[in-house]
Each structure stands twice: as structure tokens, then as C-alpha cells.
């Protein structure tokens, strides 16, 4: 098991290298001189020359990339052209609310999607199954910002149950923080819950007809025991794989959710920086999010080894 984890870790190295190239290439997409684009038309020629030298845009691309990578590896992603703050510090400051939102969203998504999927797979074709399938399709098709608008309209403006936006730090008030996070967490969780519900249902239906389930039934085990111990357990590998794939989608949803609910996380930082054409910060956020997804996928692989000891190949 340890060997498979090491092998999997080794596989992430080339992906990481490609991600770094991709993040670096974002600057190459800028039309014209990156330094001029980043600083805007009002910058003095001296400032532009200084940033050009800093970015190294006067040198060949390979050299530029090597220099950029060298600095990135030592934790230097440059300074925000909007605030003058080092990009790494700006991202670190914004990490806590995003981590909280992501964790809450995932917990809700796994709990809601898992139970809906199990309920649907219990009696395929039943009313519960058809209702869940519809709900899940709707959950996949609804854009995050539209769901946020509907939740704000119904639960906040009409019913007055929860604050429409604003963020209360965990340190200030735990109750206030949770109240401010309910709507954002529900918004972020919806698509993931929908996908999990679909995949749980499909995987459960597939394992139901396996011979070991027939054997368990012949042994006289109760249907519930069979469902949870034999069917669900063996369906977990595809469920985990798809859940891992959803982490990226979750972060895309976080970008929109944080913007709409005024949560000072890295998703909001991404939008603010994009709108201010602060590309060095954009690079930083993209890099951090990619690292996050890579870590999540490593975790899923490790969990797969626990769930199914037969998996030794990567």
C-alpha cells in the first residue's frame, strides 16, 4: 500500500510541472507587452521597464519560465499590481474562509447526495427513484449563481431566515459564522450532491445483481444489512472516484458563491483580480486551486486503497 501511494505521488510530479507551465502561459496570452497590460495605460515608461525586467519579458520564453519557476518554488509569485501585497501572502490571508466553505459544502454534498442516491437505488423505478433522478438532473443543470439568487430570494428576502450575504469570521462568533455560511454552503453543495446522488444510484444498481449479494440474501441476511454492508461497500470505488473529480467543480462554484455572498476567500480574490487585470494574483490563485485539487485526488486514491485492498496498481 505504501508503495502504491509513493507511485501515485511520483505520477503527480509531471502533472504539477504541466500545471506550472499552464499557469506561466497565462501571461503569454495577454495581448501585447505583459508589463504594459498589467500596469495599465497610465504607467510611466520607467515602471514598465522595471516590471518587464522583473517578469523577464525581454528574454527568451524558456529562460522566463525557468526564472519564474525558480521564484515560484521559493514561494515568490510576485506582487499584486492592485494592492502591492505579495501574492503568496494575499492568497494565504484568504484561505481560511474558502477552506471552511469547501469542507461544509463537501459534508453537505456527501450526506445529501449519498442518502438520496441510496434511497433511489433501494427500489429502482419507484416514485422516490424518479423524483431523485429529476432533482439530480436539475441540480447538475442549474448554474451556481442562479441557485444562489433563488436561495437568497426565498430563504433570506422572503422568509427572513438567514442573512442574504456578508461573512462573520469564525473567531468572532461561531453561531454568527455558521449562520452566514448556511446559504453559501448549500449553494456550493448542490451540484456535487446531484452528481453524487446519480453515481451512488448507478453504482448501487450495478452491484445489486452481483452473485455475492445473492449469496448474502440466501444466507438470510436482512435487506438493510445487505444493502449497506455488501452493496454500498462494493459500490464505493466508483463513488469515490467521481467525488474526487467533483472537487474542481466545487471550487468553480466557490468562485461564484464567494463573490455573491461577499465571503473574503480565494474564489472572490480570483474574480476581483481578474476584473482588476491583476494577473500575477490570478496566477497565484490558479496555482493554489490546482494544488488543492491534486491533494484531493491523492486523498481519494489513498481512500480507495483502504476501501478496496485489491487495488494495488495505480
Amino acid at each position: 500500500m505504501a508503495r502504491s501511494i509513493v507511485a501515485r505521488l511520483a505520477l503527480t510530479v509531471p502533472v504539477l510541472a504541466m500545471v506550472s507551465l499552464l499557469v506561466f502561459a497565462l501571461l503569454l496570452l495577454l495581448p501585447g507587452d505583459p508589463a504594459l497590460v498589467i500596469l495599465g495605460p497610465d504607467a510611466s515608461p520607467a515602471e514598465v521597464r522595471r516590471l518587464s525586467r522583473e517578469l523577464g519579458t525581454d528574454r527568451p520564453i524558456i529562460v522566463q519560465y525557468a526564472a519564474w519557476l525558480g521564484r515560484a518554488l521559493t514561494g515568490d509569485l510576485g506582487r499584486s499590481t492592485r494592492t502591492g501585497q505579495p501574492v503568496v501572502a494575499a492568497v494565504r490571508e484568504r484561505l481560511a474562509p474558502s477552506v471552511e466553505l469547501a469542507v461544509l459544502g463537501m459534508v453537505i454534498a456527501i450526506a445529501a447526495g449519498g442518502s438520496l442516491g441510496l434511497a433511489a437505488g433501494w427500489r429502482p423505478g419507484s416514485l422516490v427513484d424518479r423524483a431523485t433522478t429529476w432533482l439530480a438532473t436539475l441540480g447538475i443543470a442549474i448554474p451556481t449563481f442562479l441557485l444562489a439568487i433563488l436561495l437568497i430570494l426565498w430563504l433570506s428576502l422572503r422568509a427572513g431566515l438567514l442573512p442574504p450575504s456578508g461573512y462573520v469570521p469564525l473567531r468572532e462568533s461561531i453561531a454568527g459564522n455558521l449562520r452566514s455560511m448556511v446559504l453559501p454552503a448549500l449553494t456550493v453543495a448542490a451540484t456535487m450532491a446531484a452528481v453524487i446522488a446519480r453515481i451512488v444510484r448507478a453504482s448501487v444498481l450495478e452491484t445489486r445483481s452481483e452473485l455475492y449479494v445473492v449469496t448474502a440474501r440466501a444466507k438470510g441476511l436482512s435487506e438493510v444489512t445487505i444493502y449497506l454492508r455488501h452493496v454500498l461497500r462494493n459500490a464505493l470505488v466508483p463513488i469515490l472516484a467521481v467525488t474526487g473529480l467533483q472537487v474542481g467543480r466545487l471550487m468553480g462554484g466557490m468562485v461564484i458563491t464567494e463573490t455573491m455572498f461577499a465571503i473574503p476567500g480565494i474564489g472572490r480574490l480570483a474574480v476581483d483580480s481578474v476584473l482588476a487585470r491583476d494577473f500575477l494574483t490570478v496566477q497565484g490563485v490558479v496555482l493554489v486551486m490546482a494544488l488543492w485539487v491534486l491533494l484531493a485526488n491523492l486523498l481519494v486514491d489513498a481512500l480507495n486503497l483502504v476501501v478496496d485492498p485489491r487495488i494495488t496498481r495505480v
Partner: protein
Amino acid sequence: MPHRRSAGRILLSPAGSLVLALLALAILAPLVAPRSPIAQRLDASLEPPSWAYPLGGDEFGRDILSRVLYGARVSLWVAGLSVGIALLLGTAAGLVAGYRRDWSDLVLMRIMDALLTVPSLVLALAIAAALGPGARNAAIAIGLVYIPHFARPVRARVLSLADQEFVAAARALGVSEARVLLRHILPNVLSTVVVLASLNAGFAIMWEASLSFLGVGVQPPAPSWGAMLRTGYPFLEQAPWVAVAPGCAILLAVLGFILLGDRLQQALDPKLNQTLSRSVT
């Protein structure tokens, strides 16, 4: 490829008719729309839905129905262009990688891994921002981000096809590599590509709306559903119809394409399991 009768059944299914209706309304927008989508009438500002303004008026008194109808053109154009980019580049990459299985496979697939590692909305946001605002740049950004959505499933299909006897036979006859790929393998991959195109068109409409909602995609006064929501959102309490109408349009359009994709998969590629769930990124 499907039987002609089943093709008709798919087009007349709820999902198929939804997509057809959307296409028809987009094409006929200048004939169907009661007013100009950008003409302002300040006395009709935030006008509630009525006979004269079936879906109400927005903050500038523009007719929301007309804007939703013209907005369909923007959405479909972006969806078409981005899926076209992703389909061409992704299918080509998947064909080459799956058939050659050499260093090109390794390099191409690591690029796809990297593209999939960055959350797609964030990457599209960054690319669209770097290229500059506008529908075309939003479409290019979404298209680039979606390349792996075609490349990976196509590669998986090619891997299983490349070992089959008809491919070995073609090769033994001395058919060139390009010809094997295009004449023998590609036709067998097409059903997968068609399913993916429909699903991804739905997601492309969703991401275009999201980019425009965030202010990066289509810019006002052009009628884009996402941009309409962006400007209508502050009036949510006093005039919810300004945001609800384009919101429903987005939802119906996305739903139409992904349900059609699901339907097509059942008809063309029943072995391709859970494509929809796996395509959500």
C-alpha cells in the same frame, strides 16, 4: 449511427424538442421579438410583466422577452464555437494519443491532466480575462478548457478499438496511419463524440452565463443571459422578474442539452456509463 426512426424519436423527445425550440427561437429572434433588445424606454423601467411587456421591463425599460430571445443567439453561438474548438482539438488529441500509445500519448495526456487539475471555471475566467472581454474570447476560453472532456473519452475508445481485427487488417493491407485513424477508427468514435458534444454544449451555455455574470464574458448592452442576471440581480427584491426570466432561460437551455446528451447516449452508446456525471466539472 442511429436508425432514422430512432433519430426522429430523439428529436421529438422532450429534450430534443427543447433544443429544437431554442434553435428556432434564436434563429427567428428578429421576427419573434416584440421589440428591439436594446431600445431603452425610461418610463417602462422595472415594468412588471403585462400584455405589452410579457416578461416585464428591465432597469432601462428594455423589453425582457426580446432580450431573452436575442440572448439565445449569444448563448448558442458561444456554445457552438466553444464545443467546436474543444471537439476538433480534443478528438484529434484523443485519436493520436490512443492510437500511437508512445511519447505523444504521454505528453498529451499529462497536458489534459493539467487542464483538468485547474478548476474549469477558474481557468476559463483567467483565459477569458487575459484575452479580453467579448463573446468570442469567452467561447475560446471555454473551448480550450473543455479539450480534455473530448480527448480523454475518445482516447479510451480508441484504445479499445486499436486492438480489434479490422484495424489490424487495415494495417496489414498497408493503409497509412492517417487513413486508419480517419477512415476506420474515427467513424467508430463518432457516437461518443456526438454524446459529448451535446452534454458539453449545455455546460458551455452555463459557463458563458457564469463568465458574463461575473463581468468577464459578453459585455452590456449586448443581450446575454448571464449579463442580464448580473445587472438585474440588484433589483431582486423590488423586481424579481428581471433576474428570474434570463435565469429560467439558462436553466431550460442547459437542461435541454444535457438531457438530449443523456438520451443520445442511451441510443448510441449504452455501454458508455455515467457520461453525464463524469462530465460535470
